[in-house]
């Protein structure tokens, strides 16, 4: 297949990254190999988007530390980077909005690129391009995306997929938009559970062609929760997180019983927002 016929993809991973671990980083590698291997896609970038402090998750330490750790972790990567837009928003931002933000950014970048292309009739193309972009965001993406623009897809583990089922954690409209307009790459150890979950959801079933399940053969259970627990117990986290991250955590003594008590008793932002809206 001609290189130009492949769909370019940007993988976006949202999450706490509290802290980032080797497992998070593996998700990107596995997803990229998988998508590139289909012959239909070409993964050009990975974006790590740590959640803002307003998420109010228990044990969530300040975003600037989590950002720095993610940046240290991706220093050695030539395609995965960290984006701070989500973490800088004052209020917690739904995942679909983060996807939309990054997709629009790509489309704007694409317009500029095409405008600068010597072959193109400049002003006409750019105007058309911007109009298309405005239309698409107003019509809630019923139109196909501007041709040639990379597609942003949400990268996640099976836990995120299954969290779609937690009451009030996600707006059902958001789930629909995520799978319909963007797409999901879900890296999972147990594909059958994920498949069952998709089967049991009408929305996910309808858009299953846009949900890619990638098998993780390695039993890799490096959860941030376990990392934090190990740190509280004075146990080594070496080789579970990149060395630079481990050193940073140690230097700043980031995780303790105190830090784990942050946001105790506080309702998680999405639950707060979705329950309030349901009542109104």
């Amino acid at each position: 297949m001609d290189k130009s016929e492949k769909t370019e993809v940007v993988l976006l991973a949202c999450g706490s990254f509290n802290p980032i671990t080797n497992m998070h980083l593996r998700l990107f590698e596995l997803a990229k190999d998988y998508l590139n291997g289909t012959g239909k896609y070409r993964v050009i970038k990975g974006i790590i988007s740590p959640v803002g402090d307003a998420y109010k998750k228990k044990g969530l330490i300040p975003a600037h530390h989590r950002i720095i750790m993610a940046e240290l972790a991706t220093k050695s990567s030539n395609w995965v980077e960290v984006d701070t837009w989500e973490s800088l928003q004052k209020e917690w931002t739904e995942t679909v909005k983060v996807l939309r933000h990054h997709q629009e950014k790509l489309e704007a970048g694409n317009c500029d690129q095409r405008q600068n292309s010597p072959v193109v009739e400049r002003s006409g193309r750019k105007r058309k391009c911007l109009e298309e972009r405005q239309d698409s965001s107003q019509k809630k993406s019923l139109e196909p995306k501007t041709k040639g623009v990379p597609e942003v897809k949400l990268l996640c583990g099976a836990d995120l997929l299954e969290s779609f089922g937690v009451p009030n954690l996600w707006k059902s409209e958001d789930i629909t938009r995520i799978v319909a307009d963007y797409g999901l790459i879900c890296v999972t150890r147990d594909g059958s559970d994920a498949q069952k979950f998709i089967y049991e959801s009408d929305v996910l079933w309808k858009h299953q062609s846009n949900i890619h399940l990638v098998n993780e053969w390695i039993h890799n259970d490096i959860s941030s929760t376990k990392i934090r627990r190990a740190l509280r117990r004075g146990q080594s986290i070496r080789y579970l997180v990149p060395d630079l991250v481990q050193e940073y955590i140690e230097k700043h003594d980031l995780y303790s019983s105190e830090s784990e008590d942050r946001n105790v008793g506080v309702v998680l932002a999405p639950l707060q927002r979705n329950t309030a809206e349901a009542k109104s």
Partner: protein
Amino acid sequence: MKSRIPVVLLACGSFNPITYMHLRLFEVARDHLHQTGMYQVTQGIISPVNDDYGKKDLVASQHRVAMARLALQTSDWIRVDPWESEQPQWMETVKVLRHHHSQLLRSPPPMEGSDPGQEPSAPTAAPQLKLLCGADILRTFQTPNLWEDAHIQEIVEKFGLVCVSRVGHDPKGYILDSPILRRYQHNIHLAREPVQNEISATYVRRALSQGQSVKYLLPDPVIAYIRDQGLYTKDSSWQTS
């Protein structure tokens, strides 16, 4: 105050290639022994097996030693020792233990982690050398003809074992199933790896031969070495195991 017994951990294996999981064994074992309050782990030794071992797809020991060395560049307590791999033929694990133990008695290693503020303790006890392994090795003690009973006994009686448990293996069960192991179970330390991270070298080799990424499964310098040396490619005689 009773001073801790210094311990050196020795891990034997193919290390074909070395991965973060191998390195984790040392960290988990050290934490476990320290937690008992009885031991002070001063050193870790990785001893890649001799080429003569004949395991399928084993790349030349010079490479396996070089990769381990690269992986350990940033470790201040674990090192690789090529002695076993440089012998004219394969040798039993117990012989490797004997060799390193006599080396230790000859020149005791510096005490890692000793606090200069503390009173000098009584003359330091001779370091104990313990075999570090995954719990699956305990299970292989049951495989007929793989180990000599006398060797198993010597390993657990004279040296000691630190086993890091993996998913699907019940180390206590293996111990109770074997009279020799049962007798010396006080010298068999079962460490639990709290964070499962089953990076099999077989998987890594397969991924490499298929051109897939192994980043974050093993250190970057090792990956670069593998690439530069053309190891584990599709052309290497690799077959489905």
